[in-house]
């Protein structure tokens, strides 16, 4: 560096390296082959990363073709007050779950186990419950007066109308509940559509409690509507059949 004239040749006639290539001139020469020991922390940190990543890779899901989508990833069941999106249930269970809540207002007279008491008839093992499904629907919607004979015993209690504020979903729920509880076993599921049939019939009939004779005369039939197998998966909230996969 003693003599700039010999040490620093001009790049071309007009350019002086000392001025114009100052940045290139002051650059350091590079040394590449460092071989300092690796810090233990780098090795440890990398090992932790490999452990976590390996856990994902070899966690038993990678070639799990039976579960096309990992099972654990499916969302957990929605809480009961959830607005849909919950895991589908078999239809009978979903309907009965709704009916069980409605039955709370029936159990004072008909008793929690459906055995009835002195004035109110049992629901267990009753032909009125498990027989043609229009009859119990009309009783619930309109109430009932005049005596009724169940299993050879006469009951005189008056049943008030329960139809106010009862929508088809609740009616279907309570019907399925009483027809499939207390030892009862109905062969068909009462769907929401069938319950709508009952509500339409009750509307046409007008208000006022029904009597046993009237029921046998006019309403001795099953509710109309498309049948649904009892174990069809349905949404527990909307009772719609779950068509898409979860």
């Amino acid at each position, binding site marked *: *560096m003693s003599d*700039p004239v010999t*040490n*620093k*040749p001009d*790049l071309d006639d007009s350019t002086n*390296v*000392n*001025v*114009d*290539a*100052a*940045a*290139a*001139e*002051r*650059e*350091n*020469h*590079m*040394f*590449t*082959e*460092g*071989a*300092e*020991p*690796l*810090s233990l922390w*780098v090795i440890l*940190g*990398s090992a932790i*990363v*490999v452990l*976590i*990543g*390996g856990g*994902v*890779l070899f*966690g038993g*899901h*990678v*070639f*799990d*073709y039976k*579960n*096309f*989508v*990992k099972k654990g*990833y499916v*969302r957990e069941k*929605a*809480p009961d*007050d*959830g*607005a*849909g*999106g919950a895991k589908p249930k078999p239809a009978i269970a979903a309907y009965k779950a709704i009916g069980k809540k409605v039955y709370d207002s029936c159990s004072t007279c008909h008793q929690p186990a459906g055995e009835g008491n002195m004035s109110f008839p049992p629901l267990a093992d009753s032909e009125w419950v498990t027989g043609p499904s229009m009859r119990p629907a009309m009783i619930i919607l309109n109430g009932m007066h005049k005596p009724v004979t169940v299993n050879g015993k006469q009951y005189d209690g008056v049943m008030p109308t329960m139809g106010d504020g009862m929508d088809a979903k609740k009616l279907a729920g309570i019907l399925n509940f009483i027809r499939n509880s207390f030892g009862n076993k109905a062969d068909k599921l009462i769907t929401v559509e069938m319950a709508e049939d009952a509500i339409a019939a009750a509307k046409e009939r007008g208000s006022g409690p029904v009597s046993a004779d009237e029921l046998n005369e006019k309403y001795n039939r099953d509710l109309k509507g498309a049948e649904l197998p009892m174990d069809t998966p349905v949404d527990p909230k909307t009772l719609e059949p779950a068509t898409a996969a979860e």
Partner: protein
Amino acid sequence: MSELSHDSTAEDTQLRSEIDRSLRHPVMFFFTSGATWLAVSLILGIVASIKSHNPGFLGECSLLQYGRVFPAHLNALVYGWGAQAGFGVLIWLMARLSRQPSRNAGTILVAGHIWNLGVAIGVGGILFGHGTGKQWMEFPTFVWPVLLAAYAVIAIWAVIAFRVRRGDHVYISQWYLLGAVIWFPWIYLTANLYVNVFDVHPLMATAINRWFRQAMILLFFAPIAIASAYYITAKVTARAIYNYTYSVGGFWALAIIAPWAGMHAVMGSPIPVFLQYVGAAATMLVAVPLIGAGVNILKTAAQSGEATAHSPSLRFTVAGVFGMLLLALLGLLLAHPKAIAYTQFSTAVYGYEVLALYGFFSMCMFGAIYFIVPRVTRREWLSRRLIRTHFWFSIYGVLLIVLFCSVLGGFQQGAAQRAYDESWSSAVLSGFPFVVATTLAWCAILYANVFFCIHLTLMWLRLGRRSSHPTLLRHDHASVGPHGPEGDIEEIENAKA
């Protein structure tokens, strides 16, 4: 020890000057147009961010609705700024390390203009409603072959420079650069063919699109940034790479792991399950090479703390390397299948991409630009205050975006989305404060880059300081800087005369 002298010989200086001169036009073109696209992208990003919490902003002009502005913002960032800054560093660094001046600067410059035209048409196409709706591929479909052809013309000269390199030694940066040069066309061609050309099942096309985004980050932007960081750090500190063997191992680990990453983003969808799990594992495992490279670079820089503090190149580079380490940790956090359930459809992915593109890649590119531009323009940077503003507002901005988008906002939004007994609007509202904060963070980054853009333009116009002092970030004028004794040109010459 004479062969280990840090001082450059006259032949070295002359060769470096020749290389710098040969590439000055394309390199400056890539940097200045890239910085302009960065500013455009930031403005679009701010508009998109404001739109997401204040939809009435700028009225009902369809050109400026969120669905167009947001993809325009991301694509301008990726192809306008990211790729062009990468090209500039790529061709310059490859020429320097191969010790070969370029003889094809004109061709590269033309290809650079074509690339720019493609990006401009693409961004305009998105804004006028012709976007494809596939993230990072929103340009109208006729644009991608143009970009690929322009890329081929630009990058082939880097490969040729490598082929005709002087000396046998292949520096670690060359490995990374060569990797990026080869991987980009593979990723870009494959993804575009499968998503835009072949009749692939839409679900699989979505998965390929997510793989493309992750591969662009890990196999194109990351290797260029790491190459630049290894070079700048070794060059400015005049130290050997801390552990050279480990740096080469890190390259091969990245090459093996990174191509698997990406498809975890569609976890839970009916694509083959191993793709999702391998993608998640690869995104997590890529932390190993990233941490390896990061620690290696930081250990090298730490041997010369003064240079790190004072040299703008090294300071930006070190910040970018910290961004890389943060990216590795964030990948580890966000790609875990348990976290994906929360973050899959939230802003967390955006935060991860912004960290990769700005906090890691762009910071390393800024470091390289602060190093390269004085050499190719033969002028020094004008103002250290502009550089400081650029540095600190970038750091604040990108950290806030990562914090609010990925860590806090991402998980909170994801948790709110999963509460499906609540209405969707409440999930959107729960992210409101984070979106507002993101807007402010983008404003900070825009503030930083407006000054950067002006500074760079002045340098491009050769209005930089004509001096032999480097512009260093220090308050006092010490007599001896990290690059040796300083002094005005005239002083030196007078003294020598």
